[in-house]
């Protein structure tokens, strides 16, 4: 491996944000930052007595809705929606409301902890921050020396306003091995849409007339503003719901099709075929903006509606209706891209087909169709970090002999999926499934340390047993969180972060059909001995800076980079916010006055269709036929492959969201748990099937998969296909620090097998088959 290449690649992922300033600009702004920092006269909204209303931004899920906290004498009374935050249509959901109790949660982390018992015993001692930092620094150094590899220390995180500081920490330590949430979520979606449009667009739901939601449960997986616009518009908008479960979204849908799982691609290909063969496509648009239409037309001829009926179990007549209505309503038609796409092994090809469907009817970058995201560019520091000799390339990149094992049997030979290395692995996101296997195999090298921020891989990554083995073989694990997650429970050091209501967070652009900027300011003072990720990164940077042994594989010049970083970052967050908004006169004031900053409330269409604009694809056009895929030996046009099948008597296990829970993170909030309506989860099984198997509501069953087994109570229901089972994510937890849900119900991660889709490296969460046994 070439060291210089590793160095170079690391330079490239220094910042998370795309809107980065040139280094020179950042350096020149340092003096002004320092000047602001020294005049520390900003009024602190937290310090006033009595009743007050403070603007901030929710952090209980990814939407970051604007909120107004009502605070009485330093205690949060209520979180209300910010009426100026148009992205959420001025709402605050159940989780957003329950967030008011997050700082007061008796289970939250209050002091830094160092493990004293066996790993996973839950025995920790409270320590000072200084002790914790010393312990961390010592262990980081030990690993670097022992393995002569800084990349032997991994950094796992999920999105959030403070995540950038965690990524800084990875850069400071000198590791290339960041691993982020997208490969448990939307990596294949981003890859699929980008392979067609060169970008991953949003949907203009507000103005769409015909919306198809396939596997996107917007009522229970709230995305702003889409969920709200769908619910508000449902009488004038045709909403088609395609899902093997009768989700709450079906309540506002005009049609619902319980598709056979894993066959969505057949449906989309048949729709494309109908639209082309019946001349319903947008000829001008196709001619002007797309590449490969003739190949597409020829390719989809084989996919008739009658054929698709057999695959999908959706009547051919309905497929004709869908295709014709989709074309008729275009460009106000949307095949909703959705968000989490970690479904099946062929997911990228399926998402490609969805993108192609929208393209051939010309429903792209036009009102009511798919719209490329717009953003508001903020000034961000683009730091240069030190370079070290002991940095190696990513562990999950390049040729990996075990990759083929990550594919379900049916896709190993017939799926046109890579079997030696992931085709399009994101350099800063990696692939969780592949990363963990590489670490367990010690191939290409051992991964022996782990920093984890805000993520809980033990319950988030399929195959819990494997994640525990992954953590067990580590020399050192440090988790930064607000609660004792299962991962924190298995860590050596646990650093308590201040909750989102107790800290400043940088201003962030929320891109979308109409972009908006929010930031966070503390609505109350930190209740306990906690710090922000920002402060933790700065503190650890200082610690490493002062350790001569830390610099043995680097130069004085590199060490100076860290000094610069510390100087720039060791300032109050409000100054960083002000600086990031400095390109827009009045922006900071607007943020203070309204809790938001925006340039316009109206969408802008047609930017990519303008004369001279070029799509970010090889041909500069919308690639119905992907040129790079053809070169890489991938299918340039989406080819249907039959889904994998279980053994007789088995069920496909599917995952899905619930309106009261954000992934595995809010189940331990008593208000949300009770709003969910039970203190444990239950297995959805079709009523008829339950009857046949002699299963009644409340009976306990053992769910057994290739990954493990769980015991859970049964909920016979009409709301699910007979060939699948489901339960709500986030129960059956193994951290005793999550007192409400420890050992209650069943864990999803313990059942899901860790298959991966090998184009984007995304997990396949709908490829697991289970046996159900009455206990």
């Amino acid at each position, binding site marked *: 491996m070439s060291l210089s290449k590793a160095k170079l690649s690391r330079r490239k992922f220094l910042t998370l944000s795309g809107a980065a300033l040139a280094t020179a600009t950042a350096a020149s702004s340092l003096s002004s930052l320092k000047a602001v920092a020294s005049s520390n006269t900003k009024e602190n909204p937290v310090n006033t007595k009595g009743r007050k209303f403070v603007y901030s931004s929710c952090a209980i899920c990814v939407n970051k809705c604007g909120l107004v906290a009502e605070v009485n004498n330093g205690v949060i009374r209520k979180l209300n929606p910010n009426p100026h935050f148009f992205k959420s249509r001025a*709402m605050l959901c159940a989780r957003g409301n329950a967030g008011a109790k997050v700082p007061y949660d008796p289970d939250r982390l209050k002091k830094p902890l160092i493990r004293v018992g066996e790993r996973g015993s839950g025995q920790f001692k409270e320590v000072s921050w200084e002790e914790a930092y010393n312990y961390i620094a010592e262990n980081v150094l030990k690993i670097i020396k022992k393995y002569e590899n800084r990349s032997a220390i991994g950094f796992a995180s999920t999105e959030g306003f403070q995540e950038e500081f965690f990524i800084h920490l990875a850069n400071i330590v000198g590791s290339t091995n960041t691993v982020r949430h997208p490969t448990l979520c939307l990596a294949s979606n981003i890859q699929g849409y980008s392979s067609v449009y060169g970008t991953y667009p949003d949907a203009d739901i507000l103005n769409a007339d015909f919306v198809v939601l396939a596997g996107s449960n917007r009522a229970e997986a709230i995305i702003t503003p889409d969920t709200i616009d769908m*619910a508000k518009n449902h009488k004038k908008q045709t909403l088609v719901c395609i899902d093997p479960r009768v989700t709450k979204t*079906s309540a506002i849908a005009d049609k619902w099709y319980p598709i056979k799982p894993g066959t969505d691609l057949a449906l989309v290909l048949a729709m494309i075929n109908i639209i082309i063969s019946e001349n319903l496509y947008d000829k001008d648009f196709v001619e002007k903006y797309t590449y490969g239409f003739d190949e597409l037309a020829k390719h989809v001829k084989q996919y008739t509606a009658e054929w698709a009926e057999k695959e999908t179990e959706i009547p051919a007549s309905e497929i004709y209706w869908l295709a014709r209505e989709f074309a008729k309503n275009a460009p106000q038609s949307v095949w909703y891209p959705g968000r989490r796409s970690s479904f099946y092994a062929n997911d990228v090809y399926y998402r490609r087909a969805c993108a192609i469907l929208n393209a051939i009817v010309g429903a792209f970058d036009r009102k009511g169709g798919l719209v490329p995201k717009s953003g508001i560019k903020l000034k961000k520091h683009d730091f240069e970090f030190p370079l070290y000799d002991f940095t190696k390339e990513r562990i999950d990149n390049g040729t990996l002999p075990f990759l083929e094992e990550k594919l379900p049997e049916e896709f190993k030979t017939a799926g046109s999926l890579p079997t030696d290395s992931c085709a399009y692995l994101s350099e800063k996101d990696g692939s969780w499934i592949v990363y963990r296997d590489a670490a367990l195999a010690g191939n290409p090298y051992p991964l022996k340390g782990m920093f984890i921020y805000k993520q809980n891989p033990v319950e988030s990554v399929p195959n819990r047993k494997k994640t525990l083995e992954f953590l067990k073989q580590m020399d050192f694990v440090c988790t930064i969180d607000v609660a004792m997650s299962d991962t924190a429970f298995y860590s050596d050091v646990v650093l308590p972060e201040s909750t989102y209501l107790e800290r400043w967070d940088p201003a962030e652009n929320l891109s979308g059909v109409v972009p908006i900027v929010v930031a966070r300011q503390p609505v109350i003072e930190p209740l306990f001995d906690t710090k922000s990720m920002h402060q933790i990164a700065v503190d650890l940077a200082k610690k490493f800076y002062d350790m001569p042994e830390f610099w043995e594989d680097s130069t004085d010049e590199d060490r100076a980079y860290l000094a610069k970083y510390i100087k720039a970052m060791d300032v109050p967050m409000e100054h960083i916010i002000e600086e990031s908004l400095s390109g827009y006169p009045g922006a900071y004031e607007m943020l203070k006055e309204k809790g938001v900053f925006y340039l316009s409330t109206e969408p802008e269409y047609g930017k990519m269709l303008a004369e001279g604009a070029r799509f970010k694809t090889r041909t500069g056009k919308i690639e119905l036929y992907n040129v790079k895929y053809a070169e890489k030996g991938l299918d340039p046009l989406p080819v249907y492959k039959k889904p994998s099948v279980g053994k007789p008597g088995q069920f496909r296990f599917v995952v899905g969201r619930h309106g009261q829970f954000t992934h595995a993170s809010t189940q331990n909030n008593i208000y949300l748990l009770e709003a969910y309506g039970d203190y444990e989860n239950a297995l959805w099984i079709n009523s008829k099937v339950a009857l046949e198997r002699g299963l009644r509501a409340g009976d306990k069953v053992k769910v057994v998969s290739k990954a493990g087994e769980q015991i859970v109570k049964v909920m016979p229901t009409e709301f699910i296909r007979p060939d699948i089972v489901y339960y709500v994510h986030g129960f059956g937890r193994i951290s005793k620090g999550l007192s409400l849900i420890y050992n209650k119900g069943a864990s999803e991660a313990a059942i899901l097998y860790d298959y991966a889709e090998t184009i984007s490296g995304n997990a396949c969460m709908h490829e697991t088959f289970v046996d159900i046994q009455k206990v």
Partner: protein
Amino acid sequence: MSNKKYAIVLDDTKCIDCKACTLACKMENHVPTGLYNYRIWVAEKPVRGHFPNIKRSFQPSQCQQCDNPPCVHVCPTKASYQTEDGVVLVDHNKCILCKYCMTACPYDARYVNEEIKAIDKCTFCYHRLPEGREPACVETCPPKVRVFGDLNDPNSEVSKLLVEHETFNLKPEKGTKPKLYYIR
């Protein structure tokens, strides 16, 4: 004499059972934890049909703020009372927890608040109204299922909605004259 008459008009076809209203209410009004402690709720209407011919729908509800409130009529201590603007409230200091009102309410809209040792229920967020703020459930709802306003003001949104839409009340046969109106 107040010249206001508060009411809520609901379009429950927009409801996605996200329970933002229930949570906002719990937070705003310090409703204690407990599976059965709530001032407002979202009910799933009886499921129609069998898989795959099936439809789900939801009905958010709360105290109906009846014009003819049985809870007030049966209360022996006058703890339950009606304000001049037609809002039914409970004076927690006068409540002796005899639960007559709970029995009398056809909507099961009341619960025992063990923390204050009194019966509790929806107040239309009466404490918010003088500040010109809407009830918490109305304000927080993502698709704005509920619209709150004054029936005596012909220009209020509730008055307009009642003119524009056919509505119904829950359990009209009870003669309680609810002020929650559901759009058909």
